[in-house]
């Protein structure tokens, strides 16, 4: 690892200032992606700005029809939050399936969403639940947020502060995990929301995406049978040593049906 200057500001203004003065600085949340990246010398920041002392980023609250999850909320806190289990159990179950207990103790929702790993779990929840991503300067709708592999609309140094999830009527996430890393080979989140039924797929393509045909079918009939005949073309899907694109296309249908069934039994 190359050396860097480490900062742990206790408020957002100071964090933003350090980032402004140091163009080569980077933000550190749980470090579960960034530290392995630094160890491999794939990044060489001059400064690392740890957000963990900024208390306002570590708040989880239910207000009216939505749940607001602070960017620094760990996967473990999301998975054990009573408020979430009562309002969006699909989201707490998703968090419980990320990595392993030690990763969940450190990794955060903000880091996962900012990173937009093609095999990460949270992007599927953000997109399916029609969440909005709040940053230090604006609010971004889920449909606009994810732009490609490891890419989002976030500007350089734009800090995510929280993510607002409208409470759905029901939702569930099912993933076929890589048995070694636990990342999604294919993960599907299905949500029956105010904005209609939304189906988001992670792991299968370069970035999370929605499946309009399934959404339409489920809007008419929210049952696994309604989407039994819908398959994706393998053309644009990922193919690697873990799974071919044809296999991933097949898994999308299977995981989507499982997700509908588990949403119905929650």
């Amino acid at each position: 690892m190359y050396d860097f200057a480490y900062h742990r500001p206790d408020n957002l203004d100071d964090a933003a200032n350090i980032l402004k003065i140091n163009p080569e600085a980077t933000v550190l949340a749980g470090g579960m992606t960034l530290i392995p990246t630094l160890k491999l010398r794939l990044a060489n920041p001059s400064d690392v700005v740890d957000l963990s002392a900024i208390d306002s980023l570590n708040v989880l609250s239910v207000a009216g029809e939505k749940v607001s999850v602070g960017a620094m909320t760990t996967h473990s806190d999301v998975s054990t939050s009573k408020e979430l289990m009562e309002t969006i159990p699909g989201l707490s179950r998703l968090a419980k399936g990320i990595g392993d207990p030690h990763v969940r103790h450190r990794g955060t929702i903000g880091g996962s969403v900012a990173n937009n790993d093609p095999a990460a779990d949270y992007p599927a929840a953000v997109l399916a639940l029609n969440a909005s991503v709040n940053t230090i300067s604006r609010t971004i709708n889920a449909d606009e947020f994810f732009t490609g592999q490891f890419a989002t609309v976030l500007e350089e140094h734009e800090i995510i502060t929280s993510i607002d999830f409208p409470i759905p009527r029901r939702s569930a996430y099912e993933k076929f995990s890589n048995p070694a890393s636990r990342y999604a080979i294919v993960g599907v989140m299905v949500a029956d929301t105010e904005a209609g039924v939304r189906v988001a797929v992670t792991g299968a393509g370069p970035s999370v995406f929605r499946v309009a045909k399934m959404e339409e079918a489920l809007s008419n009939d929210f049952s696994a049978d309604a989407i039994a005949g819908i398959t994706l073309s393998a053309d644009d899907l990922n193919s690697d040593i873990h799974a071919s694109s044809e296999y991933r296309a097949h898994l999308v249908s299977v995981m989507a049906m499982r997700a509908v069934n588990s949403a119905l039994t929650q």
Partner: protein
Amino acid sequence: MPTVSLTINGKKVVADVEGRTLLVQLLREGQRLTGTHVGCDTSQCGACVVHVNGKAVKSCTMLALQADDSEVETIESIANEGELHPMQAAFKEHHGLQCGFCTPGMVMAAIDMVNRIPNLDEETVRHELEGNFCRCTGYHNIVQAILAGSKAMQS
């Protein structure tokens, strides 16, 4: 050079570190607490698991400076005046180790597991071990040890 100040196994420690110094380096190289192991360096194997503020974390994937002001517990702290911790005793009794390389991380992960989940069953233990790799045992005896250690810790 930045300074980190924390409590390690009940002892106040102040040390000069670099920004990039990992917690596991501070423990092993700075404090000579070599019970905590480094098995992979890619954040996957769990040989480096210690408790930070009561939670199991991979000390190879945390900067020493991130642990500033924290309470860190390592495998060296859990035996009580020469008497094994009930989880250590259970690993010994159930042959939960062969070469022993993964064992410090396994034991620290197991204690964290019991702290979070009071009524462990076999399936839960197997899932909870997803972040701890063992190249020797085939896991079976580790699972048995954790189930027994869990009972012993609660009795």
